């Protein structure tokens, strides 16, 4: 990517308010992948931290918010013979944890390839 092109993209990022956050993120990643090794590694780490944040958010909802803090409200509903809050605490949370770990592994494998840091 030429120097001129990079400046243009940076300018768009800084000044253009009409484009969506999603597009901005894509521009940032394009810039990063075209930048120095250091830029790339730092963009990879930021992308990792962002998916970590989302995953830990789900972890907190499934492990604390629903089965502990909101249990009484959820127990007014039921699935089969399980009060919902009780089910979340003794079954649902565990299933969510499982899905989370596999999701993160899958996502990171993609991210590794995208930033060209995957193992041989």
């Amino acid at each position, binding site marked *: 990517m030429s120097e001129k092109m990079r400046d243009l993209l940076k300018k768009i990022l800084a000044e253009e308010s009409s484009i969506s956050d999603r597009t901005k993120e894509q521009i940032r990643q394009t810039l990063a992948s075209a930048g120095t090794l250091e830029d790339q590694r730092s963009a990879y780490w930021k992308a990792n931290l962002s998916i970590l944040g989302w995953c830990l958010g789900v972890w907190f909802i499934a492990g604390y918010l629903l089965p502990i803090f909101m249990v009484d409200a959820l127990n007014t509903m039921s699935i*089969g013979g399980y009060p919902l809050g009780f089910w979340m605490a*003794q079954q649902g949370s565990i299933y969510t944890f499982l899905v989370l770990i596999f999701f993160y592994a899958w996502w990171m494998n993609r991210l590794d390839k995208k930033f060209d840091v995957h*193992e041989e």
Partner: protein
Amino acid sequence: MDLKVMIYLVVGATFALYIGIAIWARAGSTGEFYVAGKGVNPIANGMATAADWMSAASFISMAGLIAFLGYSGSVYLMGWTGGYVLMALLLAPYLRKFGKFTVPQFVGDRFYSNGARIVAVICLLIISITYVIGQMRGVGIAFSRFLEVDILWGLVAGMSIVFVYAVLGGMKGITYTQIAQYVVLIFAYTVPAVFISIQLTGHFLPQTGLGATLSGDDSRYLLDALNGMMVDLGFAEYTTNASFSTLNMFLLTMALMIGTAGLPHVIIRFFTVPRVRDARKSAGWALIFIALLYTTAPAVGAMAMYNLVNTLYPGGVGNTSEAMVYDERPDWMRTWENTGLLVFEDKNNDGRIQYYNQNNPPAFAGQDDLQGNELVRLDRDIMVLANPEIASLPNWVIALVAAGGIAAALSTAAGLLLAISSAISHDLLKGVFMPKISEKNELMAGRISMAAAILLAGYLGLNPPGFAAEVVALAFGLAASSLFPVLMMGIFYKRMNKEGAIAGMLTGLFTTLIYIFMYKGWFFIPGTAMLPDNASGWIMGISPQGFGTIGAVLNVAVAMIVCKLTAPPPKEIQALVESVRVPRADTA
């Protein structure tokens, strides 16, 4: 076939299997001894991790704990599984990339300090030794209960088996025996559960059976019936929280989760897979294998409780005049009375056993001349160990449960012993005191410290310190407050330096120890507790079991402050952190 002969056959066959594996998987180098040559398939490692993790407590005690706690018992279910999310997302891939042999080694290298490494070894030893005592007890109990041999001989048998495969094979031998032990323990756990679920609800899966209607009465859910029973006997509803405040529910679950993620003997299992992406995936497989037991356990607990109350009140719950006749009690009750884990006392001499909550006596307690609860002692371990007998399952199922209990205890003990011996031979000897030691001698030192650790564990199993019941809280509290935060900061906070890390670890370790000692007695010596161990004595209502969470927060806070006041880590350490964060090896 006679039950005892059957048990000897099944347990003997599993032991022969473990020894066979030990001979096949001998360790020839320190790499094989510490991390199985980093060649373990991620699914196989997941299975070994599950056996490593699921201890005598998970197998024998947890379902009973849940049976008596009901909803409140969820803290253990969520705490001991949710920790894997933290381990898989925040620690395992990075520590695998670091690519060395032990957890204290990471702490020592990352914080460029033998002092930090030694503090980490101390934390590791306290955690692992307290934990291994419980496993040795579990081995002894399984032997003495099922085979009616003296607890000493039970321990000697268990220790000899571990000795053969752990000393010979190191991590390599332990890994492949743990896989076999997982298969034994999961069969032993799920087979009775499936039978009982079919009997009670017609559901093949205990996970759906717990939420299903009772066989023969399509309008009545099992959990509703159980709730009704518990209330009729003066207890709280099974599905509602009666044991912990919401704050302690949160703190305890969190302490168990971050404690799980910080347990060194589990973390080192992820050093054995070939690649970073295998470490990520392997944690998921581990949790699948763990969840098979952990989603079954709540059904086992609830169904055992339901069966027990029905056995005690054949004429309907609370119908005290038709309660179980003591002389006509089932055989399994007679067997367990011999062990002292089940005690009846016919206080009103009516020949029947009336069971209810004495502290909150239900209405019927005033009638029929009742003199108090007559089921004086009911150890929670019975809920799993006697389950096949309660449900009248065939003898081979009972034999399987015996072998499963022993497998669960041995597999965890072996993992802990490896963590202990590698901390001594690799961190203390090779790392700090004798850096010039040859590989051959280091391997020998590893084997000798393993043997010594087995003898120590056996001795403590035979003469358990009076605090056996408290050690779980201690081990998890310390792992949560000392090791987990320092590992996490080592990876996620590049600026963290040795001063901050050491101050943080010591703060977490000592605040948690002191808080537990204040309520449980100094060094668990009875009578030395300074404050009453109940909600009124707890500072801000925080229970000692949940204090690990607070200890972790203090650890991070102190580490941050000290780190800001001292010099940043050297350039090469920052480069080390950079390289740990990226899977590919060529991170120049």
